[in-house]
């Protein structure tokens, strides 16, 4: 509602020097001035990072730069015409509306929407989800790589600091490419904390983005601790328990057996973590998580099953089959990922209950409602209203197509009309005729 009111005030002229507090608004009516000034004060307080202002003059760009630099707030400006381009470019986030006034605003903007009322969805629904998704994806990436690298780090303490790799080269290289890549992409695409209609019903949820609640140092520290803990569990549990004989024929594991086992536990733990951190789990989550783990196993089967003359030394031939022939492997595979994820599970349980985020409360309030689907959509009916149908019918009537160029005093035959009044003959200029002939005809838009 506030946006709508501000949008109407295109008769307000801001004046003032560089400090935004000293902006004085000059307005066509004192009410508008009061509204905008109040909005300025209120905007700093309530939505402390946004103030959008419509104005027809080119000083809108100046206003936006003032707010941006002086008040150091994030500014968003929205406009649909060529005159709004400077304002759109000056703001942090520029939104153009594609429509009647052409595509100039759209081409200069960061986001383009079709109608002004889509702005609520853009901000409250998609903007919010974007923030949530980006935070989760970035945190997850750092977490999974930190866990992976730390297991190798712990190993260096036991190799005499000689720099011996813990994992086989190909396992290491493909970790980020095949075995842990897809689930996080699916998370970034589909993650939703609350549905679209709830996001609009509780616009205060937007504040979580303003307060940067999902990407504070505290959040980073929690993820980092979790990564350290999980790497320790995966490394220590496996290396301590694989010391003696590991099957009934008394055989012993070598370096590559132990490291492949650690790697398998790690891949499983890190992939299942995605399911723990998702608020809305679609079937693509299951497919990618299960698929990544399966891809790892298939790769290990193939890679460990072939020897070529180009193998470098220390190859991992047959390691996975050796591992899978022992009971120890399956016992460890159940224990280690479960213990790794237990820490995160406890933390989430405690956090959700005693220090809940706002979106979690909203989720709980509406936990029994099923997903409204079509109801969420912005309604654009396919049927025209009676007035629209009438104006469309009128526009279909045969009518004169105006050759007016839109400039004042440039109607065709202008010169010849006044000339004929004075009794002088003024022929049509050739270039004028050619120009009008080549002009695209603009149909007169019937007035409502």
């Amino acid at each position: 509602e506030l946006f709508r009111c501000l949008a109407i005030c295109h008769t307000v002229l801001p004046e003032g020097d560089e400090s935004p507090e000293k902006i004085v608004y000059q307005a066509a009516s004192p009410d508008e001035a009061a509204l905008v000034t109040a909005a300025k004060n209120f905007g700093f307080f309530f939505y402390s990072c946004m103030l959008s202002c419509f104005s027809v003059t080119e000083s809108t760009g100046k206003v936006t730069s003032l707010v941006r630099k002086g008040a150091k707030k994030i500014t968003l400006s929205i406009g649909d015409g060529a005159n709004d381009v400077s304002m759109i470019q000056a703001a942090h986030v520029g939104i153009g509306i594609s429509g009647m006034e052409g595509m100039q605003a759209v081409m200069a903007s960061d986001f383009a929407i079709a109608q002004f009322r889509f702005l609520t969805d853009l901000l409250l629904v998609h903007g919010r989800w974007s923030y949530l998704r980006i935070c989760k994806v970035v945190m997850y990436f750092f977490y999974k790589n930190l866990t992976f690298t730390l297991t190798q780090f712990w190993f260096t303490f036991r190799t005499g600091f000689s720099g011996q790799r813990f994992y086989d080269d190909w396992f290491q290289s493909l970790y980020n490419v095949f075995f842990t890549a897809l689930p996080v992409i699916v998370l970034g695409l589909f993650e939703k904390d609350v549905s679209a209609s709830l996001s609009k019903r509780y616009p205060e949820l937007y504040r979580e983005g303003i307060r940067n609640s999902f990407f504070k140092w505290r959040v980073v520290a929690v993820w980092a601790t979790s990564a350290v803990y999980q790497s320790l569990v995966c490394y220590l549990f496996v290396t301590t328990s694989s010391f003696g004989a590991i099957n009934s024929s008394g055989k012993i594991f070598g370096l590559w057996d132990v490291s492949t086992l650690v790697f398998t536990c790690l891949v499983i733990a890190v992939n299942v973590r995605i399911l723990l951190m998702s608020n809305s789990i679609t079937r693509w989550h299951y497919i990618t998580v299960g698929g990544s783990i399966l891809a790892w196993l298939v790769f290990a089967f193939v890679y460990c099953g072939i020897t070529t003359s180009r193998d470098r030394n220390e190859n991992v031939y047959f390691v996975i089959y050796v591992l899978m022939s022992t009971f120890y492997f399956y016992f460890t595979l159940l224990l280690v990922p479960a213990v790794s994820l237990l820490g995160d599970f406890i933390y989430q349980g405690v956090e959700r209950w005693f220090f809940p985020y706002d979106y979690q409360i909203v989720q709980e309030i509406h936990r029994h409602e099923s997903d409204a689907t079509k109801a969420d959509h912005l309604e654009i009916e396919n049927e025209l209203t009676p007035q629209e149908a009438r104006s469309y019918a009128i526009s279909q009537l045969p009518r004169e197509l105006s050759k007016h160029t839109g400039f004042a005093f440039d109607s065709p035959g202008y010169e010849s009309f006044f000339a004929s009044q004075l009794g002088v003959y003024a022929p049509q200029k050739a270039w004028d005729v050619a120009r009008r002939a080549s002009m695209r005809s603009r149909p007169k838009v019937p007035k409502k």
Partner: protein
Amino acid sequence: MPSNTASSSAAAAAAAGSADSSTSRRNSKRPKYSKFTQQELPACKPILTPGWVILTFLVISVIFIPLGVVSLFASQDVVEIVDRYDNDCIPAPARSNKVAYIQGAADKTCNRTIVVPKKMKQPIYVYYELENFYQNHRRYVKSRSDAQLRSVKDENQIDACKPEDDVNGKPIVPCGLIAWSLFNDTYVLSKNNQTLNVSKKGIAWKSDREHKFGKNVFPKNFQMGNITGGGKLIPDVPLSEQEDLIVWMRTAALPTFRKLYGKIETDLQENDTIHVILKNNYNTYSFDGKKKLVLSTTSWLGGKNDFLGIAYLTVGGICFFLALAFTIMYLVKPRRLGDPTYLSWNRVPGGGR
């Protein structure tokens, strides 16, 4: 209202654009609806309520505690005897300079006695255990040539094996530090003056025996250099049958490790005395390593491995305890599910997380 004029003029423009549409249907530019592109896939939206948390902990403890009991029983069934002999097997006069003794030519035979604490059912496995021996050192691990081990025609692929790659220009087979440092203590066990047969067949992994070490590859120029690093190999036995070498070359993960030496196929009774005549050849004294002789039975889970059982039991126990603790916590500090008073804008004016 600007928004209304905007939408109606947009509608009119769109309507005018559909010049050949005779119906009064608007030519909307709305994209085709699909659940995937509109992000409306059916989803499971789990909420971690206290019920779920406690239930999960209980399920984990119910699964883990029996598994832990089973693993611990399997491990407790295993009888293991460990005997450290590297210090005792150096005769008293030489103990001040162990390195000189071990590198010298003196007779290194040593007699040890082991008492069996519990009945051990065959097969009983004999291991040697080394400590502080970094088989996982980077330069050690890469110092081998797998191609050479597999086939005779790749005999000359010895690049990675420096410094143990060739002798007088002729390649060493098998080359590299791993093979060069082959463990060469030997053990002869006897009970009641009857030698116990220690079988050396089948102590290496089958995949190593059959694929990594060739049947036609024979040791050549082995341990001919100035410094002897370890055991010698019988030249007319192909590498695929040199099981000690195969076991040794599967480099261990940690500096404390065990490797299978052999298998005894008779039972040992409680309080049996086993005499071990061992040859203390291997030099671990230069780097303060330790040597131990281990006799152990195995279970379906492997050797004596209390860690797995204890870990399962501990985690199961912790989960059970946590289930109780969380139940108490939720009873003491309850929060109604979906209570709007917890929303940050309802709690603190303008505040919150």
